[in-house]
């Protein structure tokens, strides 16, 4: 079958918040832009973001400014962040929120008619611009509705198979569309990766089928480095029952609005153990915690709003100690606020409408009357393609990355609300840099032999008459990652995981998919496997190399922090023999000026 071909200056892979923002910016800079989207437009994972978008506008508490946001982000990331990225992010997030408003987004308002901001874990002041609990939908729809009028070429339900290079530079990709299974050769001067995360490598996840680490793996195979891959965020509150909804996200906004965590004995266990970095910022009593969530500027935040890594570990600890909920989680109670509010039911339904419906419709639980059962779920990968803070370019010329598949901003743990702002801050920068790169560099040629090899590999599962089911291998990998590379890790288990992944990789090369090329999910699963396996190996190897516990990476055999490891990031890269090399490199962007800000903020 001949390939469908197209040419562009900038090719954006992914159409979530980061990809759309990158495409809009590249187009505004005069570049011709093509966007490949694995799903339909407007369906990307950004719609799942609930709580809000962090930006220090200071609309609710005027003590907030970018320096506080910068310092909070580093504290949350345990100082392993790319400090320059954290600075750019904190400085530009507010402008990106305002820009969304100018493009039609309607955020919730303060009494004065400005954009309302809410509390969230790890943020010192109310900082999250939001729309009820559907902020991500508001963002993606705003970008989509703006983007479709910018002359951008969108290809929906199209998945990239491999990047093609011309010498060191990227020159295009070969992709397939789901609808017909046709192959598309896209020739581009610059490529922006905006493919999101890797959550489907785990069994319990809040992520959709798309999140198979495509961008991470494609960039890795094209020669880019992946940084911080050991840091996978397990969101503390996913649904745990019924089984079919296990892992679906319960927004941190529930706790931001006053929700508390209790064990089976009815004890509010989060007060038991406050990490030293946060003792000064955390409430001493339940009464002070309530005052905080209702806007008392003198009060400190309740321990439920500590960082996600800590809250997730605390829930696991309660469950392991036999004090869990009936289905192996903890109780998250927002109904209790009726002790303080006369119209608690109305308040909850207004502030958390989609949570109300989610529990009512999927679990038969009325959250205005009963507690929810929640437990950790794989949510986000802090690690990603290593990029330069100013341009978002990887070490491969012409290959850029932004959003979740880019690495550096979040360090060892991401603060809630910093993801939506990350998407638009760095999406914009990546789009602008890619357009500039395309205008400053000449044409490349595209190697059709390489494309033919990619095509042959992609069609192989359909041509094999016998072989393992791709679903079986995916399920086995999810078990390996969940059991051996999950929330509590040990050296022997991580090493065992690396071996198991190698074995699964060998088996993945011989899968067979029934049916034809048209909209064939079995075949698509077979094509996702090499990416899932590559990112899984990167997570396991990076985790094995970090023999300490820090942020989202928790080692049962090394429960303390290691001072030396607190100054380095893990990177993995592909060697010529196709093996994966792991190394530690110094944290980027630490300057005296930035250290002074951190010190000043305490």
């Amino acid at each position, binding site marked *: 079958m001949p390939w469908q071909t197209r040419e562009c200056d900038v090719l954006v892979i992914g159409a979530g918040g980061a990809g759309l923002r990158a495409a809009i910016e590249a187009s505004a800079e005069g570049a011709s832009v093509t966007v490949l989207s694995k799903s339909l437009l407007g*369906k990307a994972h950004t719609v799942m973001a609930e709580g809000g978008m962090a930006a220090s506008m200071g609309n609710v508490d005027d003590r907030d400014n970018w320096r506080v946001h910068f310092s909070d982000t580093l504290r949350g990331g345990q100082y392993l962040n790319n400090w320059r990225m954290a600075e750019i992010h904190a400085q530009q997030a507010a402008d990106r929120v*305002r820009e969304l*408003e100018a*493009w039609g987004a309607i955020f919730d308002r303060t009494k004065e008619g400005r954009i309302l901001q809410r509390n969230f874990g790890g943020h010192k002041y109310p900082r999250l611009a939001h729309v009820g609990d559907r902020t991500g939908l508001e963002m993606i729809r705003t970008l989509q509705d*703006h983007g479709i009028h910018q002359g951008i070429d969108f290809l929906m339900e199209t998945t990239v198979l491999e990047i093609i290079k011309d010498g060191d530079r990227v020159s295009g990709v070969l992709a397939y569309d789901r609808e017909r299974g046709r192959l598309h050769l896209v020739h581009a001067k610059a490529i922006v990766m905006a493919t999101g995360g890797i959550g489907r490598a785990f069994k319990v996840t809040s992520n959709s089928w798309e999140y198979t680490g495509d961008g991470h793996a494609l960039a890795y195979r094209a020669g880019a480095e992946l940084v911080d891959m050991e840091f996978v965020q397990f969101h503390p509150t996913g649904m745990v029952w019924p089984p079919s909804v296990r892992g679906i996200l319960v927004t941190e906004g529930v706790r931001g609005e006053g929700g508390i965590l209790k064990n089976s004995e009815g004890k509010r266990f989060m007060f038991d153990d406050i990490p030293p970095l946060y003792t000064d910022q955390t409430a001493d009593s339940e009464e002070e915690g309530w005052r905080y969530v209702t806007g008392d500027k003198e009060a400190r935040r309740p321990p439920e709003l500590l960082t996600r890594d800590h809250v997730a570990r605390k829930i696991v600890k309660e469950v392991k100690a036999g004090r869990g909920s009936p289905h192996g989680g903890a109780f998250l109670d927002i109904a209790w606020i009726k002790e303080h509010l006369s119209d608690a039911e109305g308040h909850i339904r207004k502030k958390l409408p989609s949570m109300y419906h989610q529990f009512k419709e*999927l679990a038969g639980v009325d959250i205005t009357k009963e507690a929810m059962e929640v437990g950790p779920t794989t949510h986000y990968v802090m690690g990603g393609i290593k990029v330069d803070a100013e341009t978002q370019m990887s070490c491969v010329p012409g290959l850029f990355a932004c959003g979740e598949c880019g690495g550096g901003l979040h360090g060892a743990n991401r603060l809630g609300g910093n993801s939506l702002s990350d998407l638009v801050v760095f999406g914009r920068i990546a789009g602008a840099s890619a357009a500039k790169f395309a205008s400053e560099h000449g044409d490349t040629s595209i190697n059709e032999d390489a494309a033919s090899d990619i095509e042959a590999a992609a069609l192989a599962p359909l041509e094999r008459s016998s072989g393992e089911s791709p679903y079986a291998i995916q399920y086995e990998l999810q078990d390996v990652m969940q059991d051996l590379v999950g929330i509590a890790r040990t050296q022997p288990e991580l090493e065992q995981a690396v071996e198991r992944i190698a074995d699964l990789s060998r088996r993945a090369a011989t899968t067979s998919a029934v049916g034809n090329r048209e909209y064939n999910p079995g075949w698509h699963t077979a094509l996702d496997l090499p990416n899932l396996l590559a990112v899984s190996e990167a997570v396991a190897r990076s985790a094995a190399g970090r023999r300490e516990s820090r942020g989202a990476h928790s080692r049962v055999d090394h429960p303390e922090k290691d001072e030396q490891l607190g100054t380095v990031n893990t990177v993995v890269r592909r060697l010529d023999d196709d093996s994966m090399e792991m190394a530690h490199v110094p944290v980027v962007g630490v300057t005296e000026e930035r250290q002074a800000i951190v010190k000043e903020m305490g």
Partner: protein
Amino acid sequence: MAQKATFRIWRGQANEGGFVDYPVNVEDGMVALDVVHQIQAEQAGDLACRWNCKAGKCGSCSAEINGKPRLLCMTRVGDLDLSKPVTIEPMQAFPNIKDLVSDVSWNYRMKEKIKPFKPRTPDNEDGTWNMSQADVERPQEFRKCIECFLCQDVCHVIRDHHKHDEFIGPRFLVYTAALEMHPLDTEDRLADLRHRDGIGYCNITKCCTKVCPEHITITDNAIIPLKERVVDEFYDPITKLLRIFRPKKS
């Protein structure tokens, strides 16, 4: 508690095919999308079905279950009558691609035609606007839309009368309403609504409101007010008279 049930699923391409029965063990709390995934993994690896979030937030897994337009991920199997086969088929108002997947590209083309958001000059020097919560609540209701297109699927103007070329359907009337009722918007879309978008075709049977998984009151809050505005603009004799003496809004 596992229970045996039969799911009768439409298999085929481009509207050619038929129903195939699949025996399924239904577990507690399962939704229809879980059933489809189980069949994919165990019985029919190439059963096509579009889905993403599995939490009712993306609007990808629209289909018809026992003839009713619904999201597969938000339909609890326990709420269905399992004593007889449960049918699942693709949306009927759009061309079928394969199995449960419909070609919804018409919707994307419709949206592009609608004049985009055009805000008034900012209120404040920093480029921001002031809006009160009370003023944004109505457009916020419309902006809850997840674009599942179930309202388009159920609308008889599209589904039965195939007026795809003359009528934009409930989804895009809601979209237009969100723009028209946006406190900052200055664009005028009433002429388009009347002529190009075919708002007159809607005879307010409210089927769209009934199937909306986001519980948007599509007919009462979006379509009827738009109809009123169109009537005021084009059919009100006093307005017509006034227009002769007063220039149109800029």
